[in-house]
């Protein structure tokens, strides 16, 4: 029988919660004691058997899908076979789907689809996988029990209840249900509308419960976790201790302590926060804004870039909107008078982004050319100052503080600039990508992009 200390170490190792020093001691003990090794192997096996026990028919699904996949690849010629293996390793998350296709095609298991649909864990939302440049490389259903260990790239999960979670690799996470997921390591940002309040992210040392908010979680291999609130309110619990954390604040949980205050430092979430906000990619002079609270976002400045700044979400569409662009095409001096009127529809929920050049201190004209791609089609773009002013109350993060007539006049896109300093906004054919050409000087240049939330 193993010593109590060994038992504790083995148990912590199985929970991915064993420190390096203890791990070394456990390894030394395992090396010295064959009986302990045998016992340890047995615990690994039983723990796996227990994890599989939850779904008794999972084994049959495994047999059928794997057989089809193996035979599909095995019958290719040698080079194709090697390629197939490499494809499968690189895109391992596709393997189950490929396997299912192979089974259907090769064996004619007509009843298999029915079987699989009836036994697969329920879908809880949609998941997209993106590479490091924001290019979508896979789309699939997110299912309860799905466990992912990406080395790099990003995942974006949109749960059916409206919660949106963006995860940056390397990470280790598991979706448990529409209202709960585990983050074993890595970092994520989550945004939860009213319909998803109560959504939880569990780490080795703490649990965060959404109370109406946008928040970030990062957790280290040791289990120590940071929780940070960008908007609204969360509840963090560790053991019997519970803390409510408000916007602009952060806390940390660790094995050796309870819930401790932490400086609010959102920069580590500079990749996941835009993704959770709906920005898939940017290029050229256009960049996502650094993460921050609404107050911080409203005063962001940059001399060198045009920022895409998320604004209010879940806005009830109860006031009509005047906008120059509502479909594919461009807004330029050639059609400066173009205007569309969108009547209110209180059944709809909207959200917006401000695409903004807001220099700290520049006194010369500068050309900015770039684009941003969103996760859904754009509904309307307000380009000129008066239409921005009219939609501020509904969407803006903060009051537009520069109230001078000069500043307000030049706030939006300037369609009457000299021809050598043209400004133009273009919405792509699929209505997801907005391209801007700004020739900006001392004043800010803004446009507001409005999208449907639901």
């Amino acid at each position, binding site marked *: 029988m193993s010593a109590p200390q060994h038992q504790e170490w083995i148990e912590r190792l199985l929970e991915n919660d064993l420190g390096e020093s203890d791990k070394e001691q456990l390894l030394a003990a395992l090396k010295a004691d064959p009986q302990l090794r045998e016992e340890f192997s047995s615990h*690994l096996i039983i723990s796996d058997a227990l994890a599989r026990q939850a779904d008794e028919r999972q*084994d049959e699904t495994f047999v059928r899908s794997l*057989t089809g996949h193996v035979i599909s690849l095995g019958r290719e010629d040698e080079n194709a076979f090697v390629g197939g293996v490499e494809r499968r390793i690189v895109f391992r998350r596709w393997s189950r789907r490929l396997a299912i296709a192979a089974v259907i095609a090769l064996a004619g298991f007509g009843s298999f689809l029915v079987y699989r649909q009836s036994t697969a864990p329920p879908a809880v939302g949609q998941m997209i996988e993106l590479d490091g440049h924001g290019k979508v490389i896979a789309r699939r259903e997110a299912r309860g029990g799905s466990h992912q260990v990406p080395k790099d790239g990003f995942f974006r999960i949109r749960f059916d209840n409206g919660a949106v979670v963006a995860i940056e690799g390397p990470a*280790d996470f598991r979706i448990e249900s529409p209202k709960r997921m585990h983050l074993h390591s890595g970092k994520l940002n989550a945004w939860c509308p009213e319909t998803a309040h109560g959504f939880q992210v569990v780490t*080795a040392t703490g649990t965060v419960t959404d109370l109406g908010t946008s928040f970030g979680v990062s957790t280290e291999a040791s289990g120590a976790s940071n929780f940070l609130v960008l908007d609204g309110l969360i509840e963090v619990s560790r053991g019997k201790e519970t803390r409510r954390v408000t916007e602009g604040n952060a806390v940390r949980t660790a094995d050796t302590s309870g819930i401790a205050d932490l400086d609010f430092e959102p920069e580590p979430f500079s990749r996941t926060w835009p993704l959770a906000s709906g920005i898939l990619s940017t290029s050229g002079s256009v960049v996502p804004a650094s993460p921050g609270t609404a107050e911080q976002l409203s005063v962001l400045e940059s001399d060198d870039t045009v920022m895409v700044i998320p604004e209010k979400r879940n806005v009830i569409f109860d006031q009509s909107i005047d906008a120059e662009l509502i479909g594919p095409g461009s807004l330029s001096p050639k059609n400066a008078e173009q205007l569309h009127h969108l009547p209110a529809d209180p059944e709809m929920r909207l959200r917006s982004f401000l695409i903004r050049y807001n220099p700290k201190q520049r006194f010369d004209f500068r050309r900015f050319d770039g684009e941003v791609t969103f996760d859904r089609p754009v509904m309307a773009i307000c380009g000129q100052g008066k239409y921005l002013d009219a939609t501020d109350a509904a969407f803006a993060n903060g009051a537009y503080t520069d109230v001078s007539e000069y500043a307000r006049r030049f706030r939006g896109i300037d369609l009457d600039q000299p021809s050598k300093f043209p400004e133009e906004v273009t919405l792509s054919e699929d209505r997801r990508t907005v391209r801007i050409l700004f020739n900006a000087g001392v004043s800010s240049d803004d446009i507001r992009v409005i999208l449907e939330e639901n």
Partner: protein
Amino acid sequence: MPEINEYSEVVRAHHSGLRYFIRSLGVQSAWVDDIAQEAFLLAYKKWDELDEATNAGAWLRTIARNLVMNELSKTHRRQRLIDENLTTLLLDAEPETDRPGRAEDHGIRNRALGECIEQLSDRSREIIRARYFDDRNSSEIGDDLKMQPATVRKVLFHARQLLADCLRSKAIHDAL
């Protein structure tokens, strides 16, 4: 090469034991199925080299063992292992020839495991279910059941030990 029905019988007969064998070498739970899949794929391609179908289990284990050893030599794939030193140790300790008689050699059938779980005390069963069916860690279970996390871990450890003993006795019983 075997036909699909024939090979699906091979997979059905050996996948469970093979997956437990791979896990016993310290492979992360999330990657066990992938390595098992690679082993079945290689076995299929080399099926003609197998002397007798009755030796397929041992042969698959040898292939899987080599695949796990390959994991150690590829830096970018070591994330598949709980710890590379641990796997090295377990590989060194694992005899290369098949060794009959252990519970995992027979595969762990769900029904047998279910019966063994029913023999645990109510408290142990509750903790096992929370850990493995609800995916809660010892701290969370401790919160729910008003127990120290260390006590939860102790219960989990002993419960698994009882389950292993129970499965072994069932395997012996089945063999009679």
